[in-house]
């Protein structure tokens, strides 16, 4: 079939919407065809990767948060986006003329697509890239460094609860003599927590990372381990919170059953989901204490409130959960202050 389709542009909202439908329907072939036709029409591969694939992935997350897409559909769309990225990348010729770089998602971090996009952008910029994939355990990463001796490690973290493990990985990479560039939403707006965690450089977006690595890399070696950066962040509150996580959740569940009698009739699955929710409160609070940034927790509660509202669940469910956790945290001044701030920020029912 011959169509006289006019050259399409990524600024065309219809095209972007059509692509989103294709990936949402799990239509791998259709999505690949669309991306390849754009490439054939001269749209730069970087734009397809960043604007079309990356952009649509951002929309996928929003659609899930707004309760318009199921988790299954979100996963299927992500899988198609990964395929499309591979197909687009497969049609490019790149030559390694810069150094070698190891790219990994932090242990426990399963959002691999942003890192995958960065891998392709770096390859196009002349790097030899070893992409280790999603959720890379720290020892695995360090072994890889000793075996390949890269010029840089790029570490991706999309969810702040992984920051303590990101910090352990950054510290170990630097101890192995390899400078680290950190990126991803988990490091905060503009990746601003990355510096506190000891990264040599950070970037808010994949394209920023490519630019940063293209100039003045490696950074000069630190004369010694930067003394203002401890190997361990976090204080006693963090330690106690993490160690008492199981009891914290257990007690919160018991008290919840008193406040909300309906909880007593929950089936196993509902109980479990509720315990998971308490787990998330504990984990975001712990990350917030670790980095000493209440904003991490405030962002989490604001986002959760939005997710609940989209599902017709009253915010009171969130505030009740926060209070049940707070009331157990005696002698945790920082954690209590953070929880209180978040309770003040949320709209009262």
């Amino acid at each position, binding site marked *: 079939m011959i169509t006289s389709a006019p050259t399409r542009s990524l600024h065309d909202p219809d095209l972007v919407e059509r692509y989103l439908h294709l990936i949402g*329907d*799990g239509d*791998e072939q259709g999505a690949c065809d669309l991306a390849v036709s754009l490439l054939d029409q001269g749209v730069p591969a970087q734009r397809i990767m960043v604007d079309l694939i990356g952009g649509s992935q951002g929309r996928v997350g929003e659609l899930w948060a707004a309760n318009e*897409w*199921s*988790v*299954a*559909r979100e*996963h*299927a769309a*992500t*899988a198609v986006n990964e395929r499309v990225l591979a197909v687009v990348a497969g049609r490019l010729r790149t030559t390694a003329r810069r150094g070698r770089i190891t790219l990994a998602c932090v242990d*426990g971090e*399963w959002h691999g697509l942003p890192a995958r996009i960065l891998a392709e952008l770096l390859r196009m910029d002349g790097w030899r890239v070893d992409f280790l994939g*999603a*959720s890379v*355990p720290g020892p*695995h990463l360090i*072994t890889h*460094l*000793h*075996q390949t*001796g890269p010029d840089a490690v790029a570490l991706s973290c999309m969810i702040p609860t992984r920051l303590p*493990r990101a910090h352990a990985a950054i510290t170990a990479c630097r*101890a192995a*003599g*390899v400078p680290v560039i950190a990126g991803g939403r988990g490091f905060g707006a503009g990746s601003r927590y990355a510096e506190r965690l000891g990264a040599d450089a950070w970037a808010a977006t994949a394209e920023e990372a490519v630019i940063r690595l293209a100039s003045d890399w490696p950074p000069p*070696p630190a*004369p*010694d381990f930067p003394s203002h950066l401890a190997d361990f962040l976090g204080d006693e509150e963090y330690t106690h919170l993490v160690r008492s*996580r*199981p009891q914290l959740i257990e007690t919160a569940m018991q008290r919840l059953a008193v*406040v*909300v009698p*309906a*909880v007593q*009739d*929950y*089936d196993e*699955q*509902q109980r*479990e*989901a*509720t*315990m*998971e*929710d*308490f*787990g*998330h409160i504990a984990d975001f609070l712990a990350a917030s204490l670790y980095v000493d940034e209440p904003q991490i927790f405030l962002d989490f509660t604001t986002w*959760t409130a939005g*997710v*609940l509202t989209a599902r*017709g*669940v009253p915010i*009171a*469910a*969130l505030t*009740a*959960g926060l209070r049940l956790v707070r009331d157990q945290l005696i002698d945790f001044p920082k954690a209590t202050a953070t929880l209180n701030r978040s309770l003040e920020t949320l709209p009262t029912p």
Partner: protein
Amino acid sequence: MASHVPGAVVTPFLLEAAFTAATEAMLLCSAADDTVLLANPAALGLIPGLRPGDRLTAAPLPELAAAASAGIDSFRSEHEGRFLYGLRRALDDDHYAWFFRDHTDEHERTAALEAERARAAFLADAGRRLSASLHLRRVRRTTVQLAVEHLADAAVVILPPDKRQSAFTRALPGHTIEEGSLGEHRLGEVPGLREVIDGFPPIPSRWLDASQAPDWLFPAAFGPIGALLVTPLPGNAEPAGVLILAKAGEHATFSPEDEALARVFATRAGAALAAATLYQEQVDTASVLQADLLPPELPQTEGFELAGSYQAARETMLVGGDFYEAFGPSETSPDTVVALGDVCGTGPEAAVMTGKVRQTLRALRVLKAGPETMLRVLNQALTESGRRQRFVTLVIGSVTRADHGRIRLELASGGHPPPLVLRGDGTVEEVPATGTLIGVMPHTSVRPATVELAPGELCLLYSDGLTEARGGPSGAEQFGEARLRRALAECAGLPGAVTLERLRQLVSDWVHGGVTDDIAMLAVRAHTRTPLTLRGGGARNQSPYLTAARGGDRRVRPRA
């Protein structure tokens, strides 16, 4: 006695004698015209050429003259290799005195101390940076980098020749580090290099003719080389390499202290290189041995999708006791055979055993054995092989295409958790294939089962590392089969690879950073006819966050 009477006048003679005998250098001057009235021998010794009667403002010590002219009360001076300190005191309205101290010795001690401190700091920094990496290339780069920062203007590390080629790493001021290799025959062109490569003692720098250094060693832009130092990097009983240092400028030299420091540094760099070399050899050997134990690349199949996932318990080893295998259709056998198993134990010993089992299955496949026969023969082979073996549990399946896009799986189990089937409507069924452990008893009982999958339906083979992963809110609870079934039900309509990724993710979240046993998963999924199973939005899913305190009726149930 008169001389002890307070207020007695000391005679001018005695005053002058005491002045002359004093070891401290002193001048007595007239304030009116800054003329030197008296100068003791100590002062004349420190300031040769000064004589009583001279004007101090024209003293042969420039700093003293300047201080006198400006009316300043003290000065420091470095004069003819000596470090002097002068201090002026007023005596009465018409007279003042200068006192001088010779600080040369103290100054030299301080300089020596500072140099020693700098050397110690450099060696500490070098030790830290050299020990950071076990990668040969990085250690070489660190070595030349440190050398140009502290020891010389340019540095080259040359490795002993391997297959008549020597790898080199070079650092020059203002350049990025260069790497390359050169023919062994060139090594003789550098003065003193061949001797050191061959393990002979190094030749002191002063005996090396720097002008003889070949052009390829340092580019012309570096300028004339004043001094060359060739130092061995001691390794495992033979040189790990050679460090060549150069100083620019025709009159540059390496002092004996420089040479000593370079040698200490080279000892550390050599130890780091030797360790990295050993590590590299181990890694190379291990990776050869591992290659056959890693999960196989799955064959491309028609009509259905195969997806595998493997996670070893020892995360740095990459191999363990779980395994999966798949053999695509061949000319003699039209079916595809899949297998997933678990050797008791973890780590390299278990991994070696998985290699034996996989090889046996491959041979049985060539003999066109079906799943049930494969299990029986494998059991026989393992129990009859004299040595006490580890036992194995495994599931073997033969996959064939049926009508209307359906596929048929004939499954046989040897004491393994039964495979699960995910139906199109989200229900999860257990495949009723049972059997006894493999490798324990001479006779095994195997009851195979056959299942059919409609388009889009999936069969999951998994190892118990998945269901036995401990974590959850209490930190000690097993993931369990019920949770696995629920998780699988939520994956209806997803491709096999996506389903496995989702399960991995859920277990990873469940163990919450804790350790797991080996986990292997293999999915067989009949191709969907249309990729539209999710059209229309799919099922609404529950919020992963905070549904606490919500009424039970409000809870969004998955795929009710």
